[in-house]
């Protein structure tokens, strides 16, 4: 990376962005029916939670690295 030497510390937080990839692109984690929440089978509310989490993770990275 061209700018690693210029801002070495802040970019490390970008590794947090691997979490949503692992969490949502590996179906064996969530392709289940149970537990059901508010009528939603697991897969559906699990993905909904990840939508919120990805926003939170981005917000954290944004707050730290600007």
């Amino acid at each position, binding site marked *: *990376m*061209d*700018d690693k030497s*210029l*801002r070495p510390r*802040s970019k490390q937080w*970008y590794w947090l*962005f691997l979490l*949503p*990839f692992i969490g*949502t*692109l*590996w*179906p*064996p984690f969530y*392709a289940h*029916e149970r537990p*059901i929440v*508010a*009528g*939603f*089978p697991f*897969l*559906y509310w699990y*993905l*909904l939670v*990840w*939508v*919120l989490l*990805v*926003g939170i*993770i*981005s*917000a954290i*990275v*944004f707050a730290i*690295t*600007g």
Partner: protein
Amino acid sequence: MNWSAFIVFVILFALVTVVGFWAARWRKADLTLLEEWGLAGRRFGSFITWFLIGGDLYTAYTFIAVPGLVYGAGVTGFFAVPYTIVVFPIMFVVMPRLWSVCQANGYVTPADFVRGRFDSRGLSLAIAITGILATLPYIALQLLGIQVVLEAMGVTGTGIMHDLPLIIAFGILAAYTYTSGLRAPATTAVIKDTLIYITVIVALIVIPARLGGFGHIFAVANTHLLAAPKPASIFLGPKGYWAFSTLALGSAFALLMYPHAITGVLASKGQTAIKRNAVFLPLYSILLLFIAMFGYFALAAGIHTKVSSLVVPLLLLKEFPSWFAGFAFAAIAIGALVPASIMSIAASNLWTRNIYKEYVNPTATTADESRVAKLVSLVVKLGAVIFVVALPLVYAINLQLLGGIWILQTLPAVMLGLYTRWFHRSALLIGWLVGMVIGTVMAASQGFVSIFPLQLGGLVLPVYAAVWATLANLLVSVVLTWIFNAVKMARGVDATTPAQYQDVAAGSIGA
């Protein structure tokens, strides 16, 4: 003819028309400059950018096609959710770099960047043509969104009368895009999203209550899906894993390579605005998840249709009073206008900068560029109308599917090019060609389906064809780069400098 729905629809459509023309005076600047017409002067803050990119990515076609897919194929259609989850981290990391290098060098299109970075007219032309080819069917499909809601309201006729309302709607769109440039979709996107959010929230409150709650909806939908001639399910089985995740991953990277997405990003005033948007754009993904649920709502509500694009309109007509159905239809139609406008601007920018100026009139002034881009935006929309009116719809759908595969083939040059100049320009060009051919052949061989089951030894991997094609593209690019470097083939001169990719700390630019 459903008059109360139609009257509400016409009133909202008129409002958007007024705003679209008014946009030319908003943040007034010299619209004879391409920077102003095509990128609105790169001055949009976080708030407007949110609407612009949201309007860009969540199109009428999305609102019609995703529930339509869920209605027929069940959980498979929900790949759109992980897709719109992982797309934003990619945007957060990659797009500020693209913005920064483009701003520093006055680049308007991704092909401009590739031209400067790799000093290659051929590669730049390939990127521009891919972008235009991928965008045109996408614009045509936005028309489908307008067409289905008009049909659902009973606006029908024979011959030219059948297509007249559609032609009028697109004529208005073409006129205000011509006069206001990117300012038009940016302002009308605010109306579009307000209508869409209201529609979805009301639908979520009203429809599940009428249909006996979410638990019941899932159960009934599953029964219907299992009993269908081509059985599907609301549950994802191991056989569907590969398709589900590769569609999500491939689509996420493809989305950010689309010219209209890049135009939206480049029009923002800075890296901070882009990152802030990566934080807040997932709000649309919540919306998308619930819109996908409309497919199950329709199954539970007993909607029967063979035409998947009619699933949502029929559901809205059945479950809402007709005036509110008109409101929802306006939301969908305006949801078609906003992205169609941005897409036509993005395609015009590519044509003007990377084909017209590069090959037709190298001495073109900025005023010439803007004039040509405006005219091309009209031509592009005219082409889209002809496409939809004169040809079977399946052409546009198949081409849009291919477009997603094609646009991903620009990733090595555009996205990896932001990080490294290691690749040889000729290797990237040949890799692109290989990816285009392989992706097209794979999709066509399955009868225009995105998933290609590749046999590897004893293992059959059903993976999104765009992903296979991109892997081939990368492999060829890497191997040929080694070879071309070994034989010392000329690499050209990089017009960009490392500092131009630099992240700017918050506050310095466009806080």
